[in-house]
């Protein structure tokens, strides 16, 4: 599904990722853990194709295709979804209108026909109920005045709606209390599928108690320094990043 080889990414002329390797197969859930400043968010933005995150070396191949040649929106249409750490507030655009616009843009890019407003609403309602996203929230301006938990639930609602092949969850646990965390994790787990891969980026092990990964990678100073199964997350929690980084050196 995703093959990253010797990836170098610079932001504002400064190299953040320095030769990152990662391979994720369909159906797998991988976690990337790392201390602040290790390059976790840079990796997620580089995968999403954000302007200013310049790939200076290496390759990202997604479903056999060079991802770096594609625009941000083309990547989304091809099934890459980034659940953001800080979902952006956009006044003047209602949530439901945003969902309809995005869904239809992706459909159009794939050569499918637009869904009308009624069909979109029906589709959204079905997904919204399980994530406890109230109908009233859909009528409000996108993310404006939403609590941290509401914003994250809306991110997962989008994931359920767009049905991506590769979902990247960037610090989805940040700012969530335990109930909200469980709700979001249940939403994510419901979307685990044999034809879908997930990359869960997190600072803390807590989220991984609920979204149990197949593989865990430790990111430090722009490189993967250690890999393992789900038990690596517990080891990290016990020892701390400093010790793991020392051990790996």
């Amino acid at each position, binding site marked *: 599904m995703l093959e990253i080889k010797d990836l170098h990414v610079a932001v504002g002329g400064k190299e953040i990722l320095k030769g990152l390797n990662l391979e994720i197969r369909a159906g797998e859930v991988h976690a990337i853990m790392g201390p602040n400043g290790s390059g976790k968010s840079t990796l997620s933005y580089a995968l999403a194709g954000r302007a200013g995150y310049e790939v200076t070396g290496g390759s990202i191949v997604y479903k056999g295709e060079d991802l770096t040649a594609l*625009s941000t929106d083309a990547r989304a249409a091809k099934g890459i979804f980034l659940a953001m750490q800080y979902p*952006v507030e956009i006044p003047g655009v209602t949530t439901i209108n*945003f969902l309809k616009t995005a869904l239809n*843009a992706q459909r159009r890019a794939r050569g499918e026909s637009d869904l009308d407003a009624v069909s979109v609403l029906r589709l959204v309602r079905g997904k919204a109920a399980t994530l406890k996203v109230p109908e009233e929230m859909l009528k409000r301006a996108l993310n404006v005045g939403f609590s941290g938990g509401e914003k994250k639930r809306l991110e997962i609602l989008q994931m359920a709606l*767009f049905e991506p092949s590769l979902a990247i969850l960037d610090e989805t646990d940040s700012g969530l209390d335990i109930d909200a965390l469980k709700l979001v994790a249940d939403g994510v787990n419901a979307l685990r599928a044999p034809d879908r891969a997930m990359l869960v980026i997190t600072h803390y092990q807590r989220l991984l108690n609920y979204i149990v990964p197949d593989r865990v990678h430790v990111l430090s100073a722009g490189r993967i320094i250690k890999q393992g199964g789900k038990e690596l997350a517990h080891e990290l929690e016990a020892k701390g990043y400093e010790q793991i980084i020392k051990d790996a050196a």
Partner: protein
Amino acid sequence: MTTRATAPNPFLEEFAAHAAELPGAGLPWLDARRADAIKLVRAQGIPHRRIEDWKYTDLRAALEGANDLGKGAGVASLHNTDGLEVFEFGSDAPLWVVENFGAAGMDDTMSAASLALSQSTLALRVPANASPAQPVDFEFGGAHARLLIVVEAGAIITLLETPVGGAESFSNTGVEIVLHKGARLNHIRTASNAASAIVIEDLTVRVAAGAQYRAHFMSTGAKLSRTELHITLEGKGAEAHVSGVSVLDDGRHADVTTHIVHAAADTRSTQLFKNIAGGHSRAVYQGKITVAKGADGSDSRQTAKGLLLGLRAEIDLKPELEIFADDVKCAHGAAVGDLDVESLFYLRSRGIPEAEARALLMRAFLGDAVDEIGNGDIRAAVWSKVEAALAKATETAP
């Protein structure tokens, strides 16, 4: 060096040539007001950028390049006026015309010019408590046009105003609006002028106790476009709520200049103006609020925002407050920026192509100003004009 102050003023030449042929010429009260008006035009000359109020809008320079100045007779017509009184200055004027036509706010050159030179002159009276279901349409163009609207006590009316005119046209329109006690006027103007047109409009609005003036000005600009709005809240509890959007593509200019005077207690005003400037264009908003002595308990809010689509676009926002009363609430804010990159990335990461994402953000930026229009059909019609203007403005950016 030539002194421009002595350059020939085409308005004076025109008055000298045509004064006797103007509608209503010979009515002593009207002749006197026109004579006063032309005196003012003579004293002040054509506005230019060294006059503070016209700093961003050099009318004199623009007119120097226009050779058909004043040649095209003005056009002004009113439609859907069943049950209302329309007076066309062919006969002796009724009292409501004599009392109000050319009577107020005559300290502005261009308004004085439209009074002195207007060949298209109309007056409309909405009788007390009337409430026509259909909006009144007002079309105008050419140089110069003049309209008086008197809305009597308790009457409610909607006015749709559309400037019409050819490519090389110069038009100068003066509109006087008088709202009696408890009257309401919803005024929507959509201006889609040619890129080479010079369009001046000066509105003077007097609002009596408990009356309400609501207006929305949608503009795509012109070679030079100036909309000047003078509102006086004369009676206790009078209100004015004005909003507008200017969406400009390459080579266009739109200036909205407002002055709202709170002259009585417990008066309220709100202003919300949004500007988008693409290509090499310039949007201007100057908004002055005066709260006069004795206008205690007044509440005034003013917001002006600008969105620049390119490096060669310019937006000038100038809010101004003058307060002489006590216990007054005044709030104003002005800001100019670019499209938010975070928002743009968020939308694109959801599969929305860049052009569509930009359009979505621009519509969102303008949204609250357009949504001030209460009537759903009219709002939808304005939105479709805004969409068309946005498509053009985006084409020419950056």
